[in-house]
């Protein structure tokens, strides 16, 4: 059993690390046959580097928070009150994956832009549209939340099923807890792993998402990679894409380690 595990992990590791290694090797190339960090060093000097990075980090954080704030209560509600609606919501939540980002970008600008279906009439409650007139980032943030729906729903749904939410809620309500308390202090702690998974995927997605941001002219880091980075030198472009991976990974590792700082000990004790 142990051999099987390490063979699988070893092969997987090789499959995933080799291509990255080859890319990094290219980014380290220098005159003739030499290697150096020159492309990496130059990357930091290309204008817009910090702005793009900060923008993407803020978008990632915002997406993670918003999608969880929206979906945790929704999935809980579905499991507790409306189990028959689960399939419908699941279907809705898979749509964002299917719509190609190019089509989505054009339909977004067609809907929310000046000439769009919604943009043409701007009554006061269509504030997202007027925001779009000023800044693309709020709309991009909200669309990222939409793009995060598929896997967020999937992980939360699977997680909620496995913790027999109904019993927990009943017990909590019996003890006099209000709905917000039940949600925050009973359900969420038990969903630690799914929530963390969803947050990780959401953050990683935003930090790596290119097409939608590019077509909406948003100044995110992946867009910077293409616009400024690769324009200066293809090695810089490759180095920048490797940098995104590294930065995302480090941040997510921090999140993951902090998030499970108090591992299932509490839950295990409670289950006994």
């Amino acid at each position, binding site marked *: 059993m142990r051999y099987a595990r390490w063979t699988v992990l070893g092969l997987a590791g090789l499959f995933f690390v080799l291509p990255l290694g080859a890319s990094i090797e*290219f980014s380290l*190339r220098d*005159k*003739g*046959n030499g290697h150096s960090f020159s492309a990496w060093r130059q990357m930091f000097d290309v204008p817009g580097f910090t702005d793009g990075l900060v923008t993407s980090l803020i978008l990632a954080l915002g997406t993670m928070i918003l999608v969880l704030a929206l979906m945790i209560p929704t999935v809980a509600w579905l499991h507790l009150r409306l189990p028959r609606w689960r399939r419908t919501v699941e279907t809705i939540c898979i749509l964002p994956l299917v719509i190609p980002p190019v089509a989505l970008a*054009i339909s977004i*600008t*067609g809907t929310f*832009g*000046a*000439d769009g279906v919604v943009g043409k009439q*701007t009554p*006061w*409650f269509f*504030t997202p549209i*007027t*925001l779009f*007139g*000023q800044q*693309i980032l709020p709309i991009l943030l909200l669309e990222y939340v939409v793009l995060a729906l598929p896997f967020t729903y999937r992980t939360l749904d699977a997680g909620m099923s496995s913790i027999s939410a109904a019993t927990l809620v009943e017990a909590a309500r019996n003890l006099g807890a209000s709905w917000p308390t039940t949600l925050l202090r009973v359900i969420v702690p038990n969903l630690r792993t799914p929530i963390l998974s969803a947050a990780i995927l959401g953050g990683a997605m935003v930090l790596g998402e290119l097409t939608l941001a*590019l*077509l909406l*002219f948003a100044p995110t880091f992946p867009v910077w990679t*293409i*616009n400024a980075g*690769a*324009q*200066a*030198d*293809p*090695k810089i*472009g*490759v180095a920048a894409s490797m940098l995104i991976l590294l930065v995302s990974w480090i941040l997510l590792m921090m999140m993951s380690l902090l998030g499970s700082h108090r591992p299932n000990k509490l839950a295990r004790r409670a289950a006994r």
Partner: protein
Amino acid sequence: MNRRTVGLLAGVLALGLAVAGCSSSSSKNSKAASAKSAADLGGMDQLAAAAKKEGTLNVITLPRTWANYGAIMDDFTAKYGIKITDANPDGTSADEITAIKSLKGQSRAPDVVDIGPAFTTVNKNLFAPYKVATWNDIPDSQKDADGAFYQDYGGYVSIGYDANRIKTPPTSFADLKNPEYKGLIGLQGDPTQAGAGFAAVYAASLANGGSLDDIKPGIDYFGALKQSGNYITVAATKASVESGQVGVTIDWDYNQVAFVSALKGSKVDWKVVVPKDGLYASYYNQAISATAPHPAAARLWEEYLYSAEGQNLYLKGAARPVTLKAMQTGGTVDQAALSALPAVSGTAQLASETQIDKAKAALVADWTKAVS
């Protein structure tokens, strides 16, 4: 929902209202927006002054190494002090048109566009007519009579190759069938979508008995090239060429020349040759957006591009400026840059928009079958 939640929602709505209320519309310099030439504004100096007041120019899909646009943009900014924002440098002509339409009324909208020939007449209603000072130097067949769009620079389909890896340099499309080039030849991208790729197929067609009305021999040519393994479908980019994944590319000659300088000092020794058998040329087109947020800067940009200075900068980038003949007669051409251009034998006819549309339709229908 308790009172707290309702209160929060109301607060968010109120905030949104406040933001919406504070929305400021971009000031429109309507005099510049309707100017059809510099004279309408009182001369070049007035135009430059109005443009300086606007302070920014939005361009789109202009890679810095494409036809020397990097130097052109830097020089324009240095000369007039107008900042240039270049959105989506690797975007397509379609992206430019989409941007004009979708960003209408916003300060990020593009002011000017540089588009392929098939995008001009069909989008004429999006452009503001304007005739630059050197209008008469542009050949009649290369501009719209009303001034809605006008060609700026062009190039020939050319073959580029890594001299360090290729023993016999190719000089024609026929040469490329040689088994020595197995696994080496790449195009700029999918010919049904990428301009230079499309042109490569067109040129191959001309080299194999086709014409501007018949692109089929070109499709067949690449089908055979794929079968023999010479043509690989990997998109030829700076990165894929520099890393050696693609050894031979078919691209615009000005791009190939840019590759040569970009790859200096790497393992690749890039050389360019315009093929003897298939000569295909194409020019890009300038146009000013009718809804440009900076109309004066847009017009100044056009004046700059069509001045001898601007046209010579194109030439330095190995692109052939549209006013070349007039500059040669007038003696304003940069002789050194002119003689550095890749040698071309013969004259090429430019394809009309209808021919391009027909060829594209034929390509879309048959390309995948030919090369799969």
